[in-house]
């Protein structure tokens, strides 16, 4: 009797487990790499109250995709009204350590949107008139010091990602990109 009970418990577990795990694979996502969709508007030097701007002026709806002979229609693929990218601002506090700077309200947005928390999320909003995903935002530099702007690593471990917010069952698109005027994922600068 005890063996039977044990047997049934063992057999019921995988049966119940199979209810939730059958064919749960996710297939509807595309990953690609297209460089220079973000631009850092760098200055030769910065003073307190200057603004460090960045934009997505190169982020057209139609992008040249590596190894393809036709442009990729990003909006038709995703039906996404915006793409997001994330980065953070850090300040050097001693010879080796950096601390995260809470941007708070020290941010100006000209196009698109942002949210700020421990890091900054930029939203490049789709403009159907210009057929561009548009964002231009800037961090107000309120304190002197050594700073660095750091983008979070992309899906392939390099540069950073622009990620769609695809509607319904349209394809999710992750674009690994780089920023003009930026080598890698980090921009170091000094505010006087």
């Amino acid at each position, binding site marked *: *009797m005890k063996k*039977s*009970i044990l*047997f*049934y418990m063992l*057999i*019921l577990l*995988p*049966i119940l487990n*199979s*209810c939730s795990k*059958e*064919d*749960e*694979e*996710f*297939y*509807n996502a*595309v990953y690609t790499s297209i460089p220079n969709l973000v631009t850092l508007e760098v200055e030769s030097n910065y003073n307190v109250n200057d603004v460090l701007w960045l934009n997505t002026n190169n982020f057209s709806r*139609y992008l040249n*995709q590596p190894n*393809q002979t*036709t*442009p*990729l*229609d990003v909006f*038709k*693929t995703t039906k996404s009204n915006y793409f997001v990218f994330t980065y953070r601002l850090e300040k050097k506090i001693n010879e080796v350590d950096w601390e995260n700077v809470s941007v708070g309200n020290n941010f100006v947005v000209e196009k698109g949107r942002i949210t700020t928390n421990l890091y900054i999320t930029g939203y490049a909003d789709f403009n159907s008139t210009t057929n561009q995903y548009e964002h231009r935002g800037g961090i107000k530099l309120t304190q002197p010091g050594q700073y660095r702007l750091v983008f979070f690593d992309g899906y392939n471990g390099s540069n950073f990602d622009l990620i769609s917010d695809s509607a*319904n*069952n349209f*394809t999710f*698109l992750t674009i690994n990109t780089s920023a003009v005027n930026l080598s890698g994922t980090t921009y170091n600068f000094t505010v006087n």
Partner: protein
Amino acid sequence: MKKIIFLFLFSFCLVSAQDNQKFDLGKNELKFDVFSIVAFGKVHLSYERFLSDDFSVGVSGNFNQSKSREEDFELGKNRTLEDYQIIPFVRYSLSKSQIRYYFIEVFVSSNQGKYRELERLVDENNNGYYEAVQKDYSDFAIGGAIGHKFYIKEKLGIDIFVGMGKNLFSSGESPDYISRVGINVGYRF
């Protein structure tokens, strides 16, 4: 679910006293899988022919009737949607008793359904775009299962089984693995 488990355990008590007797149970059994219809929305019917005390052969038919699974497929939550499986099987009893025994099973499965895969298409303006395109698949799986079976009143058979099969010709279209689980309620004659 607790009630179901209790009923099974209670049934064991009824049949355990009769384990070693010889019975004339009949050679044929028709079965309906109550688990698959509830859990997966699949209609799963089986016929089993008993060749001896140890061996039996049979065939199962498995037909998807689940609206929720179809909706999940349409919304892109699942890549595949099985339409049906036809499953011939051979079972071998691991116990001496005719009315309560464990068994192992080898089965093959002819299965067909729908799947979606991403394709890069080109529109009339010569721009590329990605879209999940729906296609049909058919495949052939081989697999095994284990289970337990017992009879109530020598006519009402209940077998619980769990197993898995691997599709042999899948290259991304059909599911790599198919599950074979169920709780059959059958009539032996």
